């Protein structure tokens, strides 16, 4: 199973992958490259990763999610390479029998991903300059 890829993220496919006749709630998070009003004119972000380790961390996160919410079905895709403003860089879908758990488990996966998975972003500005984005999550910080 591979969580990283270069192709655009297909949300409907991700939702379909967690579909289960016993599950009534699916929560999906989609992270998108954004043009922040305070940080200058970002046009795209180049995503790179320590791919082997990122896959391994993601396997662990999904395992821990299933321990914590037994029976939860989780699908995740993180895109690498150049992603322009407005396109999705990551999507997480979680289905559970009831909706509260789907929201909680989906949030958990996203927070763990941010904390643990070795992926980096280099911002490309309108004027051709680049900037490593490691002073917080520009395109969708926690607060």
């Amino acid at each position, binding site marked *: 199973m591979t969580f990283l890829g270069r192709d655009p993220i297909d949300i409907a496919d991700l939702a379909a992958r967690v579909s289960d006749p016993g599950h009534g709630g699916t929560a999906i998070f989609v*992270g998108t490259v954004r043009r922040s009003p305070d940080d200058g004119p970002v046009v795209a972000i180049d995503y790179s*990763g320590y791919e082997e380790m990122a896959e391994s961390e993601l396997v662990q996160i999904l395992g821990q999610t299933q321990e914590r919410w037994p029976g939860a079905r989780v699908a995740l895709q*993180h895109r690498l390479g150049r992603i322009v403003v407005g396109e999705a860089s990551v999507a997480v879908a979680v289905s559970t029998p009831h909706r509260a758990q789907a929201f909680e488990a989906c949030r958990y996966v996203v927070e763990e991903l941010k904390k643990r998975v070795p992926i*980096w972003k280099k911002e490309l500005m309108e004027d051709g300059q680049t900037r490593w984005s*490691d002073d917080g999550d520009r395109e*969708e910080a926690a607060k």
Partner: protein
Amino acid sequence: MEAIIQIRCSLFARYAELAGCDSITVDVPEGATVEAAVAAVRERMPNGEQLPDRPMVAVNLEHAMPGTKLRQGDELALLPPLAGG
């Protein structure tokens, strides 16, 4: 006499850019800590003085502490602050 081991250290993102390369191999005594190996990498790597005091580190694809001991064949990696998602 103390055995010497080779530790290959991968560099990513801003650290790879800083060094101008993707990996550095350093010689350390067997059982050296991550901290000691990082010090050796810092010394050897171009612009190594610009690394943070305690960069985030992985050993064999797992996040690791400065006190972790290294053996021949371990894969070290220096991880810039994470920014996935």
